């Protein structure tokens, strides 16, 4: 099978449903959509009255934007601090999208004003700036956040103010929130398809090293879950604190375990040193990740063969050879000639901006409740550089085009096995049982839970 030619979407019984779903049972009238938005409006009015009368209760004005000539888009991406490497990419990609849309007449004739203060990779700044954007600038839509902790820091504020919020990063999954749309890839999309390929290719035994925090731990749990389902075997796991950059003992343990392949879920520049050190110690084992290469472009930053035989299940990398992507990449570098890479998260920010545009055009207004209602009505597709991306109203996540990317000894990237994978896990009943199309409620009832796989 040629790994560089375009592979059409396959249907797979186990890991995803087909992309086209029968939506005939989901007519607008059947839904509570219209009654929900009028219920929301009622709550909004009483909330506003309550806020005037008492100091308690909802703050801020919901459904901002008054039909003026500009539409305000709040963007919180790290332009300094530890996460600036990816934050700057995301900012640049979003700015490109905004400029393209504005040059093309804006959204419904309204020009987008992008307000993007710098949260400096600092969660307290995220909290402060989110409040500023929502309560002072009255943004019509909020984008942003990098680490899951930054998202969790601002979700209370988002929910309290019933603010439409897009989190465009890959993350560990599990957010089921009325006002939040997560357009990054989640573990079931990135792991399910790739793990089976790897066990077929290399063997059943693998060893996991992961960053010692939520993302690393939950993703490692996902690997255990999928391994159970397909009969693979996790030899051992090691969790490494984020500020460790010396991996001598880790490498020795991997050598001792002698796995068929190594799963690396390493985060941050300290952890990235692992690849150099592994290479220097002569440890040659195929690797799999969900997070490296696709945004931190380690394959370009490190000399070969540090990342040789690294596989990543990913929705996007700059190297994707489709016509659509090549066009996007050249436009990106035309606009940002000094940029070093345009990666997964940046592309997510780009297509999500277009997704938002589509939703506003369909709703006919920037009123946040209406836009949320439109997004919950039925799946919406947008043409992204990765291919066609479709929203999933039940979970507020999206179906991605997942490919298995491989870096060879020279760090050239090849792709195979492209397929559309839905974010199926959150919908599973009885657990987690997320169905946001059925949600009716004021923000006080919003659950902040982040679901994780249980019993693995």
């Amino acid at each position, binding site marked *: 099978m040629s790994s560089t030619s375009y592979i059409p979407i396959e249907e797979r019984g186990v890991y995803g449903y087909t992309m086209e779903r029968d939506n005939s049972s989901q007519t607008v009238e059947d839904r509570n959509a219209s009654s929900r938005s009028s219920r929301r409006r009622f709550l909004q009015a009483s909330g506003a009255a309550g806020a005037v009368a008492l*100091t308690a209760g909802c703050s801020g004005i919901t459904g901002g934007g008054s039909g003026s000539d500009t539409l305000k888009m709040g963007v919180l991406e790290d332009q300094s601090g530890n996460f600036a490497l990816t934050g700057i990419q995301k900012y640049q990609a979003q700015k490109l999208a905004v400029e393209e849309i504005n040059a093309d007449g804006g959204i419904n004739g309204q020009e987008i004003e992008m307000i993007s203060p710098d949260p400096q990779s*600092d969660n307290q700044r995220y909290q402060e700036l989110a409040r500023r954007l929502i309560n002072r600038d009255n943004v019509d839509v909020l984008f942003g956040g990098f680490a899951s902790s930054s998202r969790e820091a601002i979700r209370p504020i988002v929910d309290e103010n019933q603010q439409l919020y897009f989190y465009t990063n890959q993350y560990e999954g599990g957010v089921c929130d009325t006002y939040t749309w997560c357009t990054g890839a989640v573990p079931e999309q990135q792991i399910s398809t790739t793990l089976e390929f790897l066990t077929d290719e290399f063997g059943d035994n693998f060893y996991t090293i992961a960053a010692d925090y939520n993302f690393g731990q939950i993703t490692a749990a996902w690997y255990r879950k999928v391994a159970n389902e397909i009969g693979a075997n996790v030899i051992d796991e090691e969790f490494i604190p984020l500020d460790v950059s010396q991996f001598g003992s880790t490498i020795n343990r991997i050598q001792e375990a002698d796995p068929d392949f190594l799963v690396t879920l390493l985060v941050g520049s300290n952890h990235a040193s692992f690849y150099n050190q592994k290479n220097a110690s002569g440890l040659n084992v195929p690797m799999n990740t969900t997070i490296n290469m696709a945004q931190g472009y380690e394959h370009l930053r490190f000399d070969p063969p540090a990342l040789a035989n690294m596989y990543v299940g990913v929705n996007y990398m700059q190297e994707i050879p489709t016509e659509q992507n090549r066009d996007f990449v050249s436009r990106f570098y035309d606009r940002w000639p000094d940029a070093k890479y345009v990666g997964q998260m940046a592309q997510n920010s780009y297509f999500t901006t277009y997704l938002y545009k589509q939703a506003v055009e369909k709703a006919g207004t920037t009123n946040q409740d209406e836009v949320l209602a439109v997004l919950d009505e039925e799946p919406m597709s947008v043409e992204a550089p990765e291919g066609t991306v479709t929203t999933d109203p039940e979970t507020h996540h999206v179906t991605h085009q997942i490919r298995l990317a491989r870096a060879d000894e020279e760090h050239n990237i090849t792709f195979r096995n492209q397929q559309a994978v839905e974010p199926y896990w959150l919908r599973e009943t009885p657990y987690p049982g997320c169905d946001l199309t059925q949600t009716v409620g004021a923000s006080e009832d919003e659950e902040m839970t982040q679901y994780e796989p249980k019993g693995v």
Partner: protein
Amino acid sequence: MGGETTTTVDHSAPDGTLSRLRSRLEGPNTLGEGRAFWLGFTALLGLLLVYPLFRSSYYVSNTAYLLVSAFLGLSLCLVWGYTGIFSFGQVAFYGIAGYTFGIVSINVTGPVGTVVGLVVAVAVAGAFAFLVGYFMFYGGVSDVYVAIITLAVTLVLNTFMGQTAGEAWAVGAARLGGFNGMTEIPSLALGVGDTAITITDAAFYYFVVGTLLVTYLGLRVLVNSDIGYVMVGIRENQDRTELFGYNTQKVKLGVFTFGGVLAGFGGVVYASWGNYIDPSVFGITFAALPIIWVATGGRKWLGGAIIGTFAVTFVSQKLSVFGGQYSLVILGALLLFVILVLPEGFVPQLARRLPGGDES
């Protein structure tokens, strides 16, 4: 004041409740005394009280949020500026109190739960400060070694809390959340049942201003009292103070514990404001911030701590909005400038130029 009916009231008279009050609030350990100062102070207070009437709820809430850091600044000022204990660890107490508040108020629901959470959190922070203080001061640790131990303690908490992500890491219904932080922390609410006032927006503002005022005045009394003199004595020359017969270890421990309580209170209010807390409060960047605030404002003066904290947090927030990539560079340059040019902090400099300021 008795029943005086003279047409001019002499506030400098030695008796009378007003001047007795003032004499407790004034002294060489604080800036600002005299009638002009207190008039100015009252005017400022008045402005603060009417501020919500003129500005939208965002500005009011944000100003209050910036003021919350003043508790952390004051705790460091008391511990470092007045007693010479250079602690890198005030944020540890801030964070512990924040997490404890979260744990208690999530488990004990309702407004009463939040008040209980506040009390327990502050007590736990104080207890922890007591333990660390005892460990250090009764072991003869001083100067830079205190800084290192407190920093190490803070980093231990950072590393530890960062990996508490799983389901197993929960206290009752409250999940510690690891690196992603603890969510769904309720806001403080004073009162019972439905009549409770939730401390958000304007209520939050008045709560912060009120508690800060009480704290400031209380601390003024403290540092101008006998204990205050002992604290300053320890700062200037611990051995000599000991030779005079004072139990310096006990005083240091007491001050350090109280500093922990103050910082803890700030932590509770922060957690209540954001309904969230995460291990970054134990990070080295945040640990250095109180030092920056207090050094800039003037670490030896309470007013300096409050004003310095507010000024630096305000400027640094503005920079993040407008400064783009340069905001951290500007902040660093500001620090350098203050240390090199105004090593005492800018507030004492200002005070000297104003009437009613300290002449020394």
